[in-house]
């Protein structure tokens, strides 16, 4: 039972930065399972009879399992892992406010993700896109979010540094907004009838992205960029304008997901206008990104985490041009209901925000464990497999989406064109296999780093260039 004692000691540790490490490691574990489920769902789009007679593995249950696993299991836990390293460092504090409290939250969160998603695949689901977890899990997630919020806010308030770097604003903002969005969006605590239910559904479905993944991801990006390049952030003012305009313009955009359904026109108008106005915060982030990177691009040759950040920045440019473009009525008229949108979702969550967390993991894990990353080759493989994977996925889903959109738009019977998507679905499946393989390398690499006893100690490296 020695291993159990050791595990308990590690899991419920009060060591500084142990929560950050534990959150990141469990996030990567869910990531591998999540992308495997996604790849399996992708395979079913090519070979529908691959699995028959097993309800738990049918497409309609795999898809919500995949979505919840990568949003709540991987990205959310990864974000919290990054927050619990970045916040104490920025306020000059040794570890967060209460590491043991955060570690208990981590265990609870893992249980919710594991059991909740197991329940989804067994048919216990609320069946609202992005908010499928059953009501009992919703309450637990909310409690965990509040616990994390308390920890985050207390860390900052008890820190020595009183001048807040912009990342703190973004991180604390996301920890304030997400519980609020979660309460309304999951309709456990507030319930609506008929079409109002769909309005609240897409308020949540869009704002888990806008008020949580975007705000948190940009906060982490603003921390990593100056660290990796050794250059100060281009403009603090721009980043603050970005922060407040995200708050203003993201909240009302959800209705653009049901733009052509019979919900009130004024709501659609607000959604479309604020979607286009999202270009304001996006351009502040991108200006800061490109201007901070100026004269520093050469670093990407050796700096593996920086490579992830650069590709995330460029994917952010793509996804945020696509987003407002798709939300306008005339474009939505043509593209809605198609796989194009699925490609867009992967561009945002995989190519942008997951890449930011990949970069952060490769930087934070050596910092919190004091060990150098096990293998540079595996990290490079992880980078290229995931990068090429998401590109193939985006291209194939976009083409498949255009075929679909043309079919619906010209009212051609579905059996006349649906099979035209098959080659693109095959490419999508193969891209999923590449991405899954990349994440397996990632998990193995981080596992060997964290758990091996004879790992190389992390060298002194302010920009993190020697960590990988």
């Amino acid at each position, binding site marked *: 039972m020695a291993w159990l004692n050791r595990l308990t000691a590690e899991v419920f540790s009060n060591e500084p930065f142990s929560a950050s490490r534990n959150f990141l490691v469990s996030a990567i574990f869910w990531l591998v399972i999540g992308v495997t489920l996604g790849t399996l769902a992708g395979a079913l789009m090519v070979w529908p009879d691959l699995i028959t007679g097993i309800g738990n593995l049918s497409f309609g249950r795999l898809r919500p399992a995949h979505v919840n696993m990568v949003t709540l299991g991987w990205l959310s836990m990864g974000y919290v892992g990054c927050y619990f390293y970045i916040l104490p460092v920025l306020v000059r504090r040794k570890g967060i406010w209460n590491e043991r409290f955060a570690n208990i939250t981590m265990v609870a969160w893992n249980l919710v993700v594991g059991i909740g998603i197991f329940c989804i695949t067994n048919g216990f689901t609320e069946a609202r896109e992005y908010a499928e977890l059953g009501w009992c899990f919703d309450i637990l997630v909310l409690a965990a979010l509040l616990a994390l919020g308390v920890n985050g806010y207390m860390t900052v308030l008890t820190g020595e540094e009183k001048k807040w770097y912009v990342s703190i604003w973004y991180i604390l903002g996301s920890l304030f907004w997400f519980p609020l969005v979660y309460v309304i969006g999951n309709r456990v605590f507030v319930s609506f009838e*008929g079409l109002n239910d769909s309005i609240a559904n897409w308020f949540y479905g869009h704002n888990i992205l806008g008020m949580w993944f975007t705000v948190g991801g940009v906060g982490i990006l603003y921390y990593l960029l100056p660290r990796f390049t050794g250059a100060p952030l281009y403009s603090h003012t721009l980043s603050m304008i970005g922060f407040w305009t995200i708050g203003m313009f993201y909240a009302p955009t959800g209705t653009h997901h049901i733009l052509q359904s019979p919900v009130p026109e004024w709501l659609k108008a607000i959604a479309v206008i604020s979607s286009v106005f999202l270009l304001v915060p996006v351009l502040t982030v991108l200006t800061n990104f490109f201007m901070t990177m100026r004269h520093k691009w050469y670093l990407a040759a050796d700096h593996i985490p920086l490579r992830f950040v650069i590709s995330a920045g460029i994917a952010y440019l793509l996804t945020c041009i696509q987003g407002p473009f798709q939300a306008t009525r005339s474009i939505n008229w043509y593209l809605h209901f198609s796989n194009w949108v699925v490609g867009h979702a992967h561009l945002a969550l995989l190519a942008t925000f997951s890449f930011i967390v990949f970069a952060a993991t490769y930087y934070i894990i050596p910092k919190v464990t004091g060990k150098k990353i096990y293998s540079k080759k595996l990290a490079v493989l992880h980078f290229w497999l995931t990068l090429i994977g998401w590109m193939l996925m985006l291209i194939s889903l976009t083409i498949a989406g255009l075929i679909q959109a043309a079919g619906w738009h010209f009212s051609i019977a579905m059996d006349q064109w649906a099979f035209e998507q098959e080659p693109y679905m095959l490419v999508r499946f193969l891209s999923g296999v590449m991405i899954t393989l990349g994440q397996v390398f990632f998990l193995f690499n981080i596992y060997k780093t964290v758990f091996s006893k004879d790992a190389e100690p992390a060298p002194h490296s302010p920009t993190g260039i020697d960590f990988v």
Partner: protein
Amino acid sequence: MRPNINYLIAAGFVALIFLTIIYVTAILPASTFQPEATRAANVYVEGSPQFKGREIYRREGCFYCHTQFSRYQDREMGELVKAGDYVNETPHVLGTERTGPDLSNIGGKYPDAFHWTHHMNPRVVKPGSIMPAFSYLNDQEMSYLVAYLQEVGKRRKPPAWVAAPQEYRDRYHLVAESVDVNSSAAANAGRGIYMQNCAQCHGIQGRGNGPVSISMQKKPANFTRPFYRSYDDATWFWRVAEGVPGTRMPRWYKTLGDESMAYVAAYLKTLPQDAETPVANMDDIDRADKMDMNYWQIEAAKNSLGQNDPFQAYAPTTFKAAVGGAH
């Protein structure tokens, strides 16, 4: 740390604006947007098969691939949905992607037996479909699901099928002054034009099985489908003239005159549109050696082989028992 009062006022103001935005766009609609129920609204009595079927529809994630609202631009989907159609739809199943077709008007469109077979193995009745087989549902659940599908949109007006635009109606009426499309003479003239121009794809019996159809991914139309009864004369004329977008059906007005196209329409009207005779394999493709058999002889031969009953070969015995029990 003593917070600066100016910061606190500013932060409070911003938080107030933010909460107002959330209130207005997520919560306010629930009190101001309460449409009256329309005639087309689906009705679910709690505990009824339709109600239970809806739960299964949600549980199995059908709404990830099927939407339940038609849009302005969706032609051939019948009456446009209204907000009042959704008063009983809580939680909503609007859907956001159409990997499969829209289901807002599915009720009454197909017989129960079709739905049953389709869910057991979609590829039996829809070759090439990528819908998952829901064979893991038990008979009870399946009957609920089918009951639900038959409820969705059944109170809506029957759909208006694709129809010729006014421009073509006017043009057709001009031709109809010189061509009587109901006369056997016109049909006979059309038959010649059909055999020269159309039969290589649509087949000599109009079953969409001409020799060229082998090479086509989008198979030519099968005129024996009962669906074509809904075509009026002007629609036939328009379809021949303008072709079918997205397929290899040409725009015949470029080669044929208006009168010739009217003759073709006259001939197409004479084809038997009483039962769909699917083209299931290569042997069904029209070839020269089959030309001595007429349509009815081929059908009789196939019937004797039991090839014409798609349900007979695949449906499990439990399914038959349940369908028998349901009626």
